[in-house]
């Protein structure tokens, strides 16, 4: 039996003393060193917190007109009331609505809190859908090569040839307006981005020695692609996915703004913007606050995505 040399034992001991360093640990370290990424994570953290606890945080029912609440109606609540905060000197006899009321006399603050949930759902479902389909298509294309690759990637090229929002509008027009259809449309439109990323990674990973070694061990095609190659191709996908959530939220807001996405009375930021766009001058808060909410959400995902890209990319300064 081979005996272990003292040098090897020493090396081993040294290795065991070191805290294990993994890609994710390293990535976390780098992300916490980057201020913009931290800002992104903080905003996102607040957003997630609000999205989870919105029923507790919201002072009113987001879909209920205040005129239907007797004490509010008695206190003289009216539509498109400007923000009124008692602490900041709003007269005590006026009902308090932190961000004012909208055209249907609903509490804007509650609506925006509820909207955070929809925004996150929209972002994650569309990107999740696009990533799953895109990964399968890009993975199979990259792994098989040849005609399958050609067929899949040319289809993706066709999808990419349209401006994404126009294509999404076209799909929603065919399927009919509604949030689910809008999500599906945005999901379909973003598939090619992920398919391309995955294909590129698979093309490089499948040529590595360990994939060759796995082949020699008798690993079948399915297992090879989905268990061996894809996990090694995930990093760029995570970055693209994070940035993609921002685009998806923006696109969904745009569709809702046009009346093709979320339908009233659903408290969705884009549709809130769209419903009150004619009152920009008379009641600017109704456009301003949903707009700010969209912007902050998109910004947080973009900052986090940028941070992740820097942290996960070994080529950038380490």
């Amino acid at each position, binding site marked *: 039996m*081979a005996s272990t040399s003292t040098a090897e034992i020493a090396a081993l001991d040294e290795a065991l003393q070191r805290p294990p360093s993994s890609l994710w640990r390293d990535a976390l370290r780098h992300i916490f060193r980057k201020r913009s990424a931290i800002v992104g994570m903080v905003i996102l953290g607040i957003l997630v917190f609000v999205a989870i606890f919105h029923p507790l945080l919201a002072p009113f029912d987001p879909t209920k007109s205040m005129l239907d609440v007797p004490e509010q109606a008695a206190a003289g609540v009216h539509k498109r009331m400007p923000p009124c905060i008692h602490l900041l000197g709003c007269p005590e006899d006026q009902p308090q609505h932190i961000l004012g009321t909208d055209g249907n006399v609903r509490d804007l603050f509650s609506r925006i809190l509820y909207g955070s949930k929809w925004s996150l759902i929209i972002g994650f479902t569309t990107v999740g859908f696009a990533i799953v389909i895109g990964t399968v298509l890009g993975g199979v294309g990259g792994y098989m*090569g040849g005609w399958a690759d050609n067929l899949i990637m040319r289809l993706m090229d066709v999808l990419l040839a349209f401006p994404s929002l126009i294509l999404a509008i076209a799909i929603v027009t065919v399927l009919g307006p509604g949030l689910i259809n809008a999500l599906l449309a945005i999901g379909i439109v973003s598939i090619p981005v992920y398919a391309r990323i995955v294909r590129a990674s698979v093309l490089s990973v499948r040529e590595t020695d360990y994939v060759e070694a796995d082949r*020699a061990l008798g*690993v079948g095609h399915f297992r090879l692609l989905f268990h061996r190659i894809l996990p090694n191709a995930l990093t760029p996908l995570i970055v693209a996915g994070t940035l993609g959530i921002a685009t998806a939220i923006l696109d969904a807001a745009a569709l809702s703004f046009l009346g093709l996405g979320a339908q009233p009375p659903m408290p969705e930021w884009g549709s809130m913007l769209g419903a009150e766009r004619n009152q920009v001058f008379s009641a600017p808060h109704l456009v301003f606050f949903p707009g700010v909410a969209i912007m902050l959400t998109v910004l947080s995902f973009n900052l986090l995505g940028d941070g992740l890209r820097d942290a996960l990319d070994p080529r950038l300064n380490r």
Partner: protein
Amino acid sequence: MSQPPHSAALQSPPSEGGDLRGLPPADPDVLLDIRDLRTYFYTLDGIVKAVDGVDLVVRRGEVVGLVGESGCGKSVTSLTIMRLIAHPGRIESGEIWFDNVNLLDLPIKQMTDIRGNRVSMIFQQPTSCLNPVYNTAYQLSEVYRIHDKVSQKVGRKKALDLLKQVGIPDPERRLKSFPHELSGGMAQRVMIGMAIACVPELLIADEPTTALDVTVQAQILDLMRDLQARLGTAIILITHDLGVVAEMASRVAVMYAGQIVEETDIHTLFRSPKHPYTVGLIGSVPVLGQIKDELYTIPGNVPSCIDLPEGCRFAPRCRARLDRDLTVCLEKNRELREIAPGHKVRCWLY
């Protein structure tokens, strides 16, 4: 110097004539019988004949060395046996009889079952051959899960046994290690563990020690010899290091430009090499403790496998041909002939 473990290896392999084509080897002791194997790569620059008519016999439990310079087709030969040649390569012709089955005729599904199970392979770069996203336990137990269809729990237990078998210190801890936490020697032990997991009948070791430093190299060779004796696995040892061959193999085939030019037992190879290329190869090995002004080198370069010389592939570099002024070498390639029992040479001198 080690004794060859199997005296059977010293006897001559059965002579094969054209009449054997398409039939399994007659001798049940023969584990692998490669006949006239040709693997070509169709590149834009032309057809690369990486393996061009290789015949090789491996008996059960025997260690055969496959020696040659870089680019002579050793690795392609091994990949061809595993049928892992990818586009633009193609296995042109030949037969690979493994235990009465021609591997080249097998459907891909059955071939996948054989890989890693009955024939497995060790590669040159141990650290890059382990998947970076999985730990040792996962990768080792995968082999069992694929071939023996055992549960993850059983696989893990077997993985631990394997690590003990390949002599990794602190195996419980190493199970949780990821490839980047292993040294080259440890990674190669893990690779060997994966390769022997299913107790294969044939192990192809493609330069298993080239990437390791000398002390670790000796340990790995020890380990391989130990496992070989214990499991009775036949090994094809591919290397350019004649020292490794001398230590491990009982029989050696020397490859040059896609063909085997000499095949004999290990003692004859070093004592009386016949092919001028083998003579040059052995002559160019530095000997410890012996001071020479200049190491012997074989003049010229390995021919490109795209436009190979018409006659003997070694002829343009062959000093013996120049000395004897032979012209036949440049015109016709010699077949691999048995010049003594168990000693085959492809040369016009014999």
